[in-house]
């Protein structure tokens, strides 16, 4: 029982973090980034390779994070920005093409075998009463997830973050008051890539990742973002955690075959029961 909750919070932290990455990019750049999990995967594989080559763990972690941020900025500058004047459709398709390409690049360079990013604490566990043990890596995921959520919230309180909110709320007005939308979208993509790298790295220090794992991670990230109405950071974070716990319970007590359906059901319920998550969303605020 407790074990299930902790496992749920662990995977929930991944969903929540990826959901936050999606929301950040959505807010500032108005792109639903389907390639978010793949970006994290590429960064993580870079870290894994470095660690395997004998680079100290923390340096490899740092390299992973930087790679994630750099990938984000590159994607924004090289691909996304020029498309924004053509409406939503090419943008959406571009992130899909990117997903395919990045995934295949990983497969080509690193192969399709599952890998992990072992941390010094991987495998260690904390005994708590009644013979129940909790993995240290699970605790790390949950704590980093919390820190990430707090940091992103704090980020939106900074001047850059405030400008980002202004852009999300009204693009034309933001332009008038002299906010540089280009710089903001680069920052948002960097932050998004950074968080994506954190997410997949957390996954890899506890479980295995492969070219197959982003497909479900991205969907759960989108579910979390949906639960926050694509605007609320808190809603996204709590939603992601809740989703993780629900998934674990469904997997443990019903069947892992219906986990995915349950996630879809959650999206459906959110859309039916909490429409204000959307109507208060930035799209309608452009009015």
């Amino acid at each position, binding site marked *: 029982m407790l074990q299930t909750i902790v496992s749920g919070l662990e995977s929930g932290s991944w969903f929540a973090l990826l959901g936050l990455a999606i929301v950040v990019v959505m807010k500032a750049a*108005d792109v*639903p980034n389907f390639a978010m999990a793949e970006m994290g995967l590429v960064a993580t594989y870079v870290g894994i390779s470095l660690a395997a080559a004998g680079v100290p763990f923390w340096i490899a972690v740092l390299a992973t994070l930087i790679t994630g941020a750099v990938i984000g900025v590159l994607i924004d500058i090289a691909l996304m920005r020029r498309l924004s004047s053509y*409406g939503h*459709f090419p943008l959406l*398709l571009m992130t899909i093409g990117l997903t395919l390409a990045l995934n295949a690049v990983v497969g*080509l360079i690193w192969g399709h075998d599952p890998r992990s990013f072992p941390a010094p604490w991987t495998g260690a566990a904390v005994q708590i009463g009644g013979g129940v043990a909790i993995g240290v890596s699970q605790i790390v995921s949950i704590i980093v997830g919390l820190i990430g959520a707090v940091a992103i919230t704090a980020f939106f309180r900074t001047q850059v973050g405030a400008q980002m909110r202004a852009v999300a709320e009204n693009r034309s007005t933001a332009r008038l008051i002299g906010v540089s939308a280009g710089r903001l979208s680069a920052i948002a993509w960097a932050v998004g890539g950074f968080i994506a790298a954190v997410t997949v790295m957390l996954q890899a220090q506890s479980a295995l990742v492969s070219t197959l794992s982003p497909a479900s991670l991205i969907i759960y990230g*989108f579910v979390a973002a949906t639960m926050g109405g694509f605007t609320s950071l808190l809603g996204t974070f709590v939603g992601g955690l809740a989703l993780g716990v629900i998934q674990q319970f469904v997997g443990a007590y019903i069947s892992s075959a219906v986990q995915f359906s349950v996630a879809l059901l959650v999206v459906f319920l959110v*859309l039916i029961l909490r429409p204000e998550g959307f109507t208060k969303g930035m799209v309608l605020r452009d*009015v």
Partner: protein
Amino acid sequence: MSETAQQVAAAKAVPPGDGPSGLAGAGIAANTVPGRTTGGSSTRTGIIAIIVLLALFAVPFVANTYVVFVVSLTLVYAVSTLGFNLLVGWSGQIGLAHAALFAVGAYGSAIGVEYGIPFLLTIPLAGIVAAVLALVIGFPAIRLRGFFLAIATLALGMAIVELLTMARPLTGGGGGMSVNVWSLPGITTAASTYFVVLAVAAIMFFLMRRALLGRFGRTLQAVRDLGQLTGSLGVSALRYRLVAFALSGFIAAVAGTLYGQLQTFIFPAMFQMNLLVPMLVMVFVGGAGSMWGPVVGAAFAIVLIEFFQDLGDQQAIAYGLVLMLAISVLPGGLTSLARRVGDSRFMARLRRREVAE
């Protein structure tokens, strides 16, 4: 008075739905063929259509089974894209349940035939079922725009495919089911399926062209580009948005019934992202909002799929890169290239050169 101040005031005073949908439409709008049909050009289109139809009719008599299959598949995808393009390009709504509705057509027809309904009858029936389903899916369209709609419809589409997997007694579950192939007496099954596909495609294209070049298409574009402001024109944006959903669902399912006949065996995994992505590519390549784009898009996608058939890593990279490159170079789709050449300075320069010579 200052121009900027005036614009700000105007922007504020313009009522709901105006900004976002206008912007969203702008990109798509740039590609549409100006739809004025003069007497002369419509006769010409008619003649071309008849010639193309005759040529297509001859295919089974002159080509081998493989070619017949590929052409059939192209036509099926073209019909499906016709519906997708209606939704995405003409009504400006990125609904992503198209692959699922396509699946509803394939399964609906296969199951219907098992229960003794004649195949030809299952084509419209499956279409109607999918249209109703599409209405339900499109209902969030009332309040969701742009990407929000995209994600909601994507989730609902995935849910449909999950339901197909779970309804094991009817659908065979994840393992799939085989399809009873209908055939005309006296000719091969492949040729028979081909003729059904051709007939359906011809009817669909004929009707769609008429609808889109007339008042219906005009109003859809008004809804796409003007959003709620169409209210002042006495037009219900909501109604047209929902009709676009229903129609595109109908067409998707009709194409799906034919797809089942071509594949002869269907399973849920066929209708997931691996189908939705090529479907999006077809709309994109054909040029969202264009008239003949769906055919171009379908043909392109078939070539692409055939070319990258066994998706090894190299092919997958190439597929992704081709897609990304195409979007970067031609954000308006492949067919926008022809138009760009057609009415641009490029053409003017050519003409001037002719005069000079």
